[in-house]
């Protein structure tokens, strides 16, 4: 019985998009896999995020991972038998004034010098063509044309389902309480008994610092609760996802007309209770930005607002790659409010590292050692 399986080649802790993707890619490489999730797959950040599949405006350290992921997103159905509702109408970063625009230009030039060409400048005219509803005063922006959006919970569960089909054991409703060395293995202690494996992947999202601490690699992980709002269906008026350079805003209209409003305003996370508290004062500021930029939205009824519990690192970059201390331990967390797009690719790269010891996709600058260097020496 697979449900009774207690040991495997790889144990993945956490059933977010990262854990599920890594479980799938490990299974595809022929490893036996157990994935352990305390709630259900996609219950946290991976199931409630904005679904933005964005290469645009990423830190250079994660661009290679992001590019790898984007290639997978564009063929996602072939990998996991579900298109995850992925649509690719581009993402546009809108400059609200000339200073914003100059910043955009410098950024794109820098990326070009590094050999990345997915971000392109657009002028006021093209901006208006692509985003007719945007306010008259915006002088231009940057577009990443292959970007888009998908349905987060559906995507995460599709990765989980496919991993299970490929032989991975998925244990939902099982909580890891401790990890410790046991000879050549790692002992993963849970409220449903112990599991053993020579390799563990810490993909525990906002709870990953606890696993890291057990392993003697404490990290300065901050638990955050980014907030989102969604409106009732509006007449179709915008295709690409829009983000701003100056103010916080991420804005997207779905095919059914509903409009998602976000941008990274934070509520309060109570992670031990799987609960978040919204901050309506900040959501009001978020709404005010939309009011300014998209007059068409002023009467839109807001149907729901929510926040997800997410891990944020001090430099806004993930911890990704082998442990700095232990053989057989891999970290994959701290995606700092932009890890959904990275999930499919990060799983593939992680499985490659587990199988071969390295990856052709550079992950420099994402190593956990940047926080734990003092603990190592």
């Amino acid at each position: 019985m697979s449900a009774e399986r207690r040991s495997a080649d790889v144990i993945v802790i956490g059933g977010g998009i990262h854990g599920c993707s890594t479980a799938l890619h490990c299974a595809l490489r022929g490893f036996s896999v157990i994935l352990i999730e305390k709630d259900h797959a996609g219950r946290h950040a991976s199931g409630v995020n904005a679904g933005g599949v964005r290469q645009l405006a990423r830190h250079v350290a994660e661009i290679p991972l992001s590019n790898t992921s984007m290639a997978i997103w564009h063929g996602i159905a072939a990998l996991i038998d579900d298109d995850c509702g992925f649509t690719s109408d581009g993402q546009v970063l809108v400059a609200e004034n000339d200073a914003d625009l100059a910043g955009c230009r410098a950024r794109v030039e820098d990326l070009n010098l590094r050999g990345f060409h997915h971000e392109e400048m657009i002028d006021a005219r093209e901006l208006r063509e692509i985003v007719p509803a945007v306010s008259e005063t915006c002088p231009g922006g940057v577009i990443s044309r292959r970007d888009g959006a998908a349905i987060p919970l559906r995507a995460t569960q599709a990765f989980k389902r496919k991993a299970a089909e490929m032989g991975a054991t998925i244990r939902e409703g099982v909580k890891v309480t401790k990890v410790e060395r046991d000879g050549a293995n790692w002992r993963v202690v849970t409220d449903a008994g112990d599991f053993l494996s020579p390799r563990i992947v810490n993909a525990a999202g906002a709870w990953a610092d606890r696993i890291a601490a057990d392993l003697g690699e404490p990290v300065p992980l901050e638990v955050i609760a980014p907030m989102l709002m969604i409106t009732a269906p509006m007449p179709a008026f915008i295709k690409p996802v829009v983000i701003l350079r100056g103010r916080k805003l991420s804005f997207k209209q779905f095919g059914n007309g509903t409009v998602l409003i976000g941008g990274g305003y934070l509520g309060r996370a109570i992670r031990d209770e799987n609960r978040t508290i919204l901050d309506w004062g900040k959501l009001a500021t978020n709404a005010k930005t939309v009011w300014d930029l998209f007059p068409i939205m002023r009467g839109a009824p807001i149907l729901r607002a929510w926040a997800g519990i997410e891990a944020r690192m001090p430099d806004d970059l993930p911890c990704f790659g082998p442990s700095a201390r232990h053989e057989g331990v891999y970290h994959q967390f701290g995606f700092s409010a932009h890890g959904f797009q990275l999930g499919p690719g990060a799983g593939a790269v992680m499985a490659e590292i587990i199988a071969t010891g390295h990856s052709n996709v550079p992950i420099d600058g994402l190593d956990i050692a940047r926080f734990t260097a003092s603990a190592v020496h």
Partner: protein
Amino acid sequence: MKPLTDIDQLAEHYDLAIVGAGPAGLSAAARASELGLAVLLVDENPAPGGQIYRSITTTPVSDRAVLGADYWRGRDIVARLKRSAAAYAARCTVWSIAPDVESDASPFEIGLSLDGRARLISAGQVILATGAQERPFPIPGWTLPGVMTAGAAQIALKSSAIVPKGRTVIAGCGPLLYLLAGQLAAAGAEIVAVLDTTPRRNWRAALAALPDFLRSPYLAKGLKLMAKARRSLRFLGGVTSLAVEGSDRLSAIRFERGGASESLACDTLLLHQGVIPSVNLSNAAGCAHDFDPVQHCWVPQLDDWFASSVPGIAIAGDGAGIGGAESAALRGEVAALDTARRLGRITIPERDDQAAPIRAALGRTLRGRRFLDLLYKPAAQFLAPIVDDTIICRCEEVTAGQVRDAAKRLGVTGPNQMKAFLRCGMGPCQGRLCGPTVVELIAEARGTTPAEVGYYRLRPPVKPVTLAELASLPQSEAAVKAVVR
């Protein structure tokens, strides 16, 4: 009472905010205010009364016999509020209740709207008295014009003295069914039949609870209602299936009884299958809920004083579990007493003393309830519609078949996961109409119980608020500073 008609008239802070001006909220507000608390009572309706006493101060129905003596009792409850010092805001919708993020002492931040303007105020304690809603009752064709719920018809009657036109059929089960049929008939509706779907085998389960019922206040009242309805209306019991006929509007109701199928032409069909607590606000506020197998619905976890799992939030009235109007008023008083105790206005012995007679009365009103719950438990085929193309989520037009398929083929284990695949529960009603049915369908498809399946995690705003209302929220200085992160 201090009536508030403009949102600017609301104070920044109240000792106690009460949501819902039915018997529970009215009594709680009166009692708490008599105990010296600064109380705000809000209700989205234009006048106090809640469901049972809807429009009690304004109804155009003047013949007292139409709505019955119970209805007019509401006058005393409203009069008591009027004598109190409580602030009362009508037409005021509460869309969010949360611990105040700016204060660690955890008073509540309450989001409300009145006349198209929104505000955030704070309260030290909250009593939710949001009452009950009719249990969703999806049958094939129920979304066609001409079909509505019996409760909706009653609302039109109480608030505007309007009765359905033409040949009217009432179908379903539950104690209110007979009351509603009787009221509508008395008001002049042409009720051609009452189709009773109460499963006959329920009698066996209910029998054990009969002795209590025989000593209960329901008995006399219930028997009178039943006798009157049966005497004056055409009653068809043992109905096991219902389907609406008609292409762009209801033309007839098809039903099965005793294995035979019949059809009855009608212009209006009123559906009713009992009431369940409305849990949207308590759920979104983070209160824990359990599935009550006897009442077959989700109810909040409450202590003896109706305090929920969230410190500072109490839930009174039918929102605490269906108990009827009299018990709603008594529960409101009990909740108010403990609120005053929590705020340090009365001592524990004072609270207990004042509560003793109320508790005794409460025990009397609830006696016999179990019998009604067991007798009127809806049949499985109405809880989880059998016909696949029955629409169960009106907002997103999701069918029973789609939910069953997602549960079986895609392995979707709960209503929250179902949202990602079918969007049911994501429309403007946020699952108020489809939630219970989705849970039943998943439980049935997966061979488990509603308790195991769980319920939606609901999100504020519990009632829609417009972007303009939100964008114009007055900003406190602290909020402006906080926006930096």
